[in-house]
Every structure is written in C-alpha cells, then in structure tokens.
C-alpha cells in the first residue's frame, strides 16, 4: 500500500516535471537549443505572480493571466534579442548565452524579492485532497498533472495537425530548405521560443502554488526537466511525459525506502537510462516534434 501510494504521488510529482520539461523539449526539438535559463524563467514567472497577487493585490486568476502573457512576450524578446544572434553559430554559444541569462535572472530575483522562500497562496484548493481507496490525492497536484497532459497533448496536436505545426517541423528538419519553400524560419523560431517560455511560466506558477520557491530554485527545476527530457528521448513530446513520470516515481519510491535519498534515486535512474538507452525510452517509437 505504501508502495502504491508512493507510485501515485510520484506520478503527481511527475506532472510538475512534465510541465517544466514540455517547453524545454519543444525548444530543443525545434531550435536545437538547450535553454539553460528555462528553470529560472519559470521561477521569474512564479515571483511575478506572487508579486502581483500578494504584493499588488490582483485577483489570482488575473495575476496568473498577466504573467503568462508577459512570459510569451519575454520568450519572443529572448529569441529576437539573444537566440536569433546565436543561431548558425556553434551550439555551445547559445548554451553559454542562456547560462548567463540564468545567472542574471536568479540574482536579479534575489535582489528584488530577497532569499526568503515564498509561495503562491491558492487558499483551500492548495491543500484540499480526496481519498481514493485509502490513497490521498491532492487536488492541486492532480490539476497540475492534468494541465501538463493537456499542454503536451495540445502541443502534439498543434505540431501534427496544423499548418503552423507543419512549418515548425519543416523548420526543425531543415531551416534552409524551409525558407526555400516559403517558410519564414526566423518567425517560426520566435513563435516556438515564445511558446516554450510561456510553458516555463506556467510550470513556474504551478510549482510556486505547490511548494515554497526561492529565487535560486531555477537550476534545480532545470535539472529535473532536463532529466525528464533525456529519459524520455530528446525531441519526443510523449517521451518527455513518460520521462517526467519515471523521474517522479523514482524520487517518490526512493523516499519511501530512505526519506533523505529520493532525489538521489531519481538521478540514479536517469544515469541508468543514459547508460542503457542513451537515446531515451521512446527513441524508436519516436514522435518527431
């Protein structure tokens, strides 16, 4: 029973990781850029939402809405101002650029909000839960998992069923040839980056609603998201969802065995997958995205 409970809680935790990983996976799949500031962008959104809701007294839904729209804009600016200048250069250049951005965001947040842990207060919903056959399921973690599944499903449908998605996949395959058939690769990249950063914002808000956040929490979120993406298979959206679940369950079950080593077990599972299936679990049945 304890084990089953741990698996259920692990899947719920996986929902958090999946949400963080979705944008990371999208951006790597299309732009071939590992955005090292992805976690920090999420934390930025979390603190912006906390500031608007608790500080400025905006209604929660409005605060979150404003933040998410703002994150889309920040994503577009990130591409226009930074990544568009590094495309075509060595991949390490964009990694270094986003690493710098990560340091800047983390420290700027600490400057403004201090190092105190904060949380986004959702009222009763934040702590409510239901008992399913003796296993307690929190409404908020369940909602976060649902949002993650919806986001990944929506992304998958947008990429496979729409004209925009075809242009994105064509650009991901071969940006030079995409331009030769009339696709504005730069604009496609800009929209994809905006979406990815918007997803990072959604993940950050969900994280701040579920637990305490500190300004420097970004890199640890990035690590879990990155592990989820790699476990599932780079560039595969369903793989990302699966990878997030595997990581969440590994950490949760690990904590049952030894309460202090849950995260360590997660890392070990990641290394095991990397050693035995370096292309990821869904490498063969790969959904290109």
């Amino acid at each position, binding site marked *: 029973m304890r084990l089953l409970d741990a698996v259920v809680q692990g899947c719920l935790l996986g929902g958090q990781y999946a949400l963080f990983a979705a944008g990371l996976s999208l951006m790597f799949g299309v732009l071939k850029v590992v955005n090292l500031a992805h976690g920090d962008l999420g934390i930025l959104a979390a603190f912006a939402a906390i500031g608007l809701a608790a500080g400025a007294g905006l209604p929660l839904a409005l605060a979150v809405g404003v933040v998410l729209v703002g994150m889309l804009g920040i994503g577009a600016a990130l591409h226009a101002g930074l990544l568009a200048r590094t495309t075509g250069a060595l991949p390490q250049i964009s990694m270094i650029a986003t690493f710098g951005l990560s340091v800047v965001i983390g420290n700027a947040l600490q400057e403004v909000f201090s190092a105190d842990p904060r949380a986004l207060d959702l009222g009763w919903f934040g702590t409510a839960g239901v008992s399913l056959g003796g296993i307690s399921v929190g409404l908020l973690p369940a909602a976060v998992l649902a949002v993650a599944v919806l986001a990944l499903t929506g992304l998958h449908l947008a990429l496979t069923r729409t*004209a925009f998605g075809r242009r994105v*996949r*064509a650009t991901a395959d*071969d940006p*030079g040839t*995409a331009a*030769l*058939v009339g696709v504005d690769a730069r604009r496609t990249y800009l929209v994809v980056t905006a979406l990815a950063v918007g997803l990072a914002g959604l993940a950050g808000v969900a994280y701040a609603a579920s637990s305490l956040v500190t300004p420097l929490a970004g890199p640890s979120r990035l690590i879990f998201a990155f592990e989820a993406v790699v476990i599932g298979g780079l560039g595969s959206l369903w793989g990302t969802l699966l990878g997030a679940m595997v990581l969440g369950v590994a950490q949760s079950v690990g904590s049952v065995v030894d309460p202090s080593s849950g995260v360590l077990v997660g890392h070990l599972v990641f290394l095991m997958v990397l050693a035995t299936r370096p292309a990821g679990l869904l490498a063969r049945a790969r959904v290109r995205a």
Partner: protein
Amino acid sequence: MTLLRVEGLVVRHGLLTAVREVDLAVAPGEVVALVGANGAGKSTLLHAVAGSLPAAQGRVLLGGEDVTTMPAHQRVRAGISLVPEGRRLFPSLSVLENLLVGVPGGSRAAGPATSGLPRGGWDVDRVLDAFPVLARLRDRPAGLLSGGEQQATAIGRALVADPALLLLDEVSLGLSPAAVDVVYASLEAVLAGGVAVVLVEQDIERALRTATRIVCLLEGRVTRDVARRDADRAEITRAYFGTGTEVPS
C-alpha cells in the same frame, strides 16, 4: 516582357567568387538550361536567384521588381521556387505534408499570392494529378521514399507555390536512368503549363532536348547563350569544358 533579369551578378562563398558578373534574362514560358562543369557556378547562380545566397554585387529583378535583398521565403511568394540539389525533403513529414508546407499560407485551400506574373496555376490537387506516384504515397514519411519518388515530391513541393519561375537544380543527380526518365516525363506537364524554367543539368543531351535556350557557364561567367535551334552539340561541349571558347571556323 522579361520575367527574370539578372544584371552584373557577383556571388561569393567566402573568399571564392563563384559567379562573376553574370547577366541573364528569362522570358515567361522559356526553358533555359544552364550547362557547365562542376564548380562553374550553376547552383550558386540558382541559389542567388532564389535568395538563399546573398548577391555581393549586381541585381536580380523579377517582373521588373528588384528582389536582390528580398529574403528567400518572400521570393517564393513573389514567384520564384527552387528544387534544390539532393531533393532536401523534410524527412519527418509525410509526402502530402511536404507538399502542404510549400503552399503559401500553409493550408490546402489558400491560394497563391498574386503579383501579376504569368503562372502555371498549380495547386496541391493538380500536383497529385500530374504526379500519380505522389497520390499513392501521400501518407508515407518522405524519409522512406526512393530517389525518384523523392524527386517527384521535391518538384511537387516547389510547384504548389504556383511559381512564375521554377529553378531545377540537378534533378537527375543520383537517380537511376529509369527514374530520370520518369522525372522528365512528369516534367513535360510542367513545361507545357507555361511556367518559366531554369534548369541545371549535367547531361548535355538531356538539356538540349528539354530546353529552349542553352546558357553555358565557365568559371562563373556566361560563355555561350544560344537558342536551342542554333545550339551545336560540339560547340556546347567545348564551352562546357572550356576548351577553345572561340568558335573554330
């Protein structure tokens, strides 16, 4: 009327000048074959016309409008489509998706941009009619096609933008002789449809049979520009290899 006019075009790859002061004019409906040895600048010239390589000097005019600095994706709307050497399909997209990516606006229903240039009236349905093999393979991933099927898809993908000028770069390269015949047979429908074509072809016989005009390039310069009826195979061969560019009497 001149559809395409290239004036004093110079294109460089880094330090190497691949196209040197080339002048070229193409009338609507004309089929021009660019002939020359490897490294003569044929592909470079096509890419500069399509906008994927920048012009160092000179101008490219389409229908009288200067498109020299227009990016490649806008030139597709303006009426120039390039079928690149090696097909360069999008391997993770199906055959039909490869075609649909080429449609301006991205969906099957959207019509092409109108700019007053004479076009062939191509769309996805007409391409599927003209290339029956594509209709049969429409849902297959492009990465799993044979060379000839890939080439048909690549030509179809360029046609769905309904170009006024179609640039074909080495469409027979790497294909079996039978597949080349099939590709050229299906090109007949394109050539008959009024689209102007500039094609690069290593096979001089094939170029002489297909084109209405032959332009020979040698080391980035135009050395011969003759109508097919005036073209003499021996002379073209000499221009191709650069042996004796002055015509012996």
